[in-house]
């Protein structure tokens, strides 16, 4: 009788132990939709659109530039800017030489100046910026890594980020020199170093302060601020720039 009791108590204890272990594991496992780290960090996620809307109404060049005053260009940059044939500005002979007209990527930071929203998504170790224009994506690594060494230059740059209180600070280098800074042809070199400080200035507003540091193009670093408004009712839609290429009539008017 005693042996049977002992055996059964052993079984019961084992069952209870494994049951409590299972319960403990379930309690520790995070819910599928909630990233474990998310609750500790500011939340910049959502679909954001430029505010005010990109328009010439807010100044001569409006939302086409980062600063209404001329940025402090070096002679090299001045010459490039003068030679640029920006599609919106006119005043030159022949066709615009803006490569985004033939679907070359605008790169960063110019992509902020297109009248299309972006979505910010936060996942463990990364912040993803998903721009509707061209469906371009930036990965900002927030896992503590440094910049890649001797990497090939890219259109969107190599971005790492860290959180400072309520602000995401993105540090980007490694750009190629194939893009303009803005819509009117201000240049940058492959030495461009961009710092973006992104925070919610209000529950439905985002503030991005961008510092441009490029000794080849600008005599000193300069900063610009852009605001974005949250659109909880929007999703990023598909945008394939080359769609027009299949319609030769539209190609004519794209020149």
């Amino acid at each position, binding site marked *: 009788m005693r042996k049977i009791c002992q055996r059964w108590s052993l079984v019961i204890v084992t069952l209870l132990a494994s049951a409590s272990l299972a319960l403990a594991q379930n309690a520790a496992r995070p819910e599928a939709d909630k990233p474990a780290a998310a609750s500790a960090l500011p939340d910049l996620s959502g679909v954001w*659109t430029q*505010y005010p*809307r*990109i*328009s*010439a*109404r807010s100044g001569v060049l*409006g939302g*086409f530039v980062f600063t209404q005053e001329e940025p402090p260009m070096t002679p090299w940059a001045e010459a490039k800017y003068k030679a640029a044939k*920006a*599609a*919106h*500005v*006119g*005043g030159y002979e022949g066709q*615009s030489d*803006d490569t*985004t*007209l033939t679907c070359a990527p605008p790169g960063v930071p110019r992509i902020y100046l*297109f*009248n*299309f929203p972006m979505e910010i998504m936060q996942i463990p170790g990364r912040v993803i910026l998903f721009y*509707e*224009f061209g469906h371009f994506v930036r990965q900002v690594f927030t896992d503590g890594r440094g910049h890649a060494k001797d990497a090939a230059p890219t259109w969107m740059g190599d971005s790492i980020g860290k959180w400072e209180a309520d602000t995401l600070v993105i540090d980007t280098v490694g750009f190629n020199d194939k893009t303009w800074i803005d*819509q009117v042809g201000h240049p940058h070199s492959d030495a461009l170093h961009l710092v973006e400080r992104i925070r919610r200035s209000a529950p439905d507003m985002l503030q991005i302060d961008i510092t441009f540091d490029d000794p080849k193009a600008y005599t000193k670093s300069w900063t610009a601020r852009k605001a974005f*408004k949250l*659109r909880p009712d*929007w999703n990023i*839609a*598909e*945008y*394939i*720039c080359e*769609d*027009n290429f299949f*319609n030769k*009539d*539209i190609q*004519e*008017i*794209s*020149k």
Partner: protein
Amino acid sequence: MKGRKLIVVALAFVLLTMPSWAFAHHGLAGYDMTQSLTIKGTVTEFAFINPHSAIHIDVKDEKGNVEKWLVEADSPNNLTRAHWNKNSIKPGEQVSIVGNRAKNGSKVMRLQKVVFSNGQELKPREGDEY
């Protein structure tokens, strides 16, 4: 003639203070933004695609000859947010198009608004709303 000049000036003032529906990712400099033009005809095609939607329209001139015009509009992404869809303009419909003509004088315009035969208007933006 004086009255017409006044209309042009008034239109230019209105256009310059309107939301810049016309500032797409390219080609603004190619259009005469100082005055608008209205054409009337039959839609032959509505291409609701990126980066620019396009309305093909047959316009009859005074002699009855058909001119083929092309009207450039915004990305369907933005038009959808202004409540357009792929069926907003149908081939065969009689419409008026108000817009800005290409500077080189070609039969190409940048859309300002569509006016249907029942008087209903279709604009690429909802005023200042996003």
